């Protein structure tokens, strides 16, 4: 057998193996993996994910954060022009009125109520977002069960409810109401690691045949804007280097994997954002050179306000910030597995 035929056969074997792997992955995504699994629930959720880009709408949304026995409420106007222009403008309560988040073709800008640009993010890796999303969906399938939970009405529209229940006890989870006609998520409830309702966002009115005006997505000119947190654009990324060697955690909670890392700057100070995911929830580890604003104490932990848990510490000349909706013990274990932080328990 000559070399060319050998290579052809090898190439075919690789393609067959890749095809089998892809088929298994697709089966895992859409098929049932255990007793009680509801393929219809996964179908509903995946349609909802796709609808996020397909459906244009204009609506008003109410958001509630539950913490310390209290609820904080806000209202916002939400406009989405398919596939990739989204604007969220907070209108209440007064301190937030005027806060605008606008995304257009991957470029995200956030303006505070004073109209100042506080964040500008360029597309990090055009085209790679889809690969990351596919990976997330696979993880979601592996780490969560989807359960249909009946029907209801949201914003006057019939909706089907589905819950994403973690296979590992003690993880946050989510319940979603999906519009039966468009598959858009009309109501989204987040439950924390203890099973307590932590957040709720729901449309109170929605129009799926919006007529957008050119001014609907206009942003005020942000003269002399210093966005604070910026991400290098594609042309600038290669010129940037971290001034320190990053340190990685040796431990992750069950189901979590490393997703991606990227550079950022805050007022000129370079930092590294490492993102981890279990398919539904995100865990972030930030590393920056220790400055005057670095935590002076060896360790501090904060919880509340709907953001889960924040753990901060300094070690080996770096300042670390760990953020995630996980129990305090888990965050400590993650932090303690970062070289130089072995004393954290």
């Amino acid at each position, binding site marked *: 057998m000559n070399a060319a035929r050998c290579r052809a056969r090898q190439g075919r074997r690789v393609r067959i193996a890749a095809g089998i792997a892809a088929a298994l992955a697709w089966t895992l995504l859409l098929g049932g993996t255990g007793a009680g699994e509801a393929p219809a629930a996964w179908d509903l959720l995946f349609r909802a*994910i796709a609808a996020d880009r397909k459906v244009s709408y204009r609506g008003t*949304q109410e*958001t509630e*954060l539950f913490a310390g026995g209290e609820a*904080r409420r806000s209202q*916002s106007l939400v406009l989405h022009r398919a596939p990739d222009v989204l604007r*969220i403008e907070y209108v209440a309560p007064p301190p*937030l009125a005027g*806060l605008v*988040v606008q995304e257009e073709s991957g470029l*995200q800008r*956030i303006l*505070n*109520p004073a109209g*100042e640009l*506080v964040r500008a*993010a360029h597309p990090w890796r055009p085209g790679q977002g889809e690969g990351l999303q596919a990976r*997330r*969906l696979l993880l*979601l399938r592996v780490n969560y069960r989807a359960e249909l939970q009946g029907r209801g009405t949201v914003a006057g529209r019939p909706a089907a409810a589905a819950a*994403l229940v973690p296979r*590992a*006890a003690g993880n946050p989870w*989510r319940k*979603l109401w999906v519009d039966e006609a468009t598959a858009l*998520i009309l109501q*989204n409830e*987040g439950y924390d690691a203890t099973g307590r309702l932590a957040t*709720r*966002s729901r449309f109170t009115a929605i129009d799926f045949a919006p007529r957008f005006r050119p001014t609907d997505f206009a942003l005020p000119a942000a003269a002399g804007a*210093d966005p*604070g*947190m910026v991400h290098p654009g594609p042309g600038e990324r290669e010129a940037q280097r971290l001034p320190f060697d990053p340190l990685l955690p040796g*431990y992750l*909670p*069950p189901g979590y994997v490393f997703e991606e890392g990227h550079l*950022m700057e805050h007022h000129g100070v370079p930092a590294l*954002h490492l993102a981890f*995911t279990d398919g*539904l929830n*995100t865990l*972030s580890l*930030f590393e920056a050179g220790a400055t005057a604003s*670095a935590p002076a104490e060896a*360790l501090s*932990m*904060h*919880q*509340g*306000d*709907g*953001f889960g848990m*924040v753990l*901060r510490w300094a070690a080996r000349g770096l300042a670390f910030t760990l*953020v995630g909706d996980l*129990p*305090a013990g*888990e965050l*400590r274990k993650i932090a303690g597995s970062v070289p130089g932080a072995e004393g*954290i328990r």
Partner: protein
Amino acid sequence: MVCPEFAERLSAYLDGELGEDEREGMAAHLTACAACRVALAALARLGDLLRATPAPPLGEDLAPGLLAQVTAPEARLRLRWFGHGRRTAVAAAGLVLVLAGASALLLWRAGPPEPGPVMAGRPPAAAEPYLREHAVYAAGQPLADRSSLLLTSFGRGAER
């Protein structure tokens, strides 16, 4: 996440210190619980690493210093309660060393003291940019609740 009702006994299970009923219960649980299996494997690995690390030598003057303390006149006076003479003093010194070693071992097994309680409320302002970055990143993921994530990250009125 490790199951709370089994977490405290994982170490004892690894060391073969559980009674028969407890050991069987733990084994049955481990066959069903991946999180506890991962934790047990991590404990076992930690033990391997520590056993492979040479124990730091005691300071050269530690033992003689201890012996000097227990053989000092005041110590000899106290030791007379328990016995007589140099043999008793040496035995007492040995006991002190054993107790010191055991205490060190217990401290090592228990780990450093807890860093402190979780504080309710937002962290210092220096952490706000990272909270926002986390929230904005998480808000872009499938099925995320964008509005609440963005609200938590800008809950302080969106200072820059």
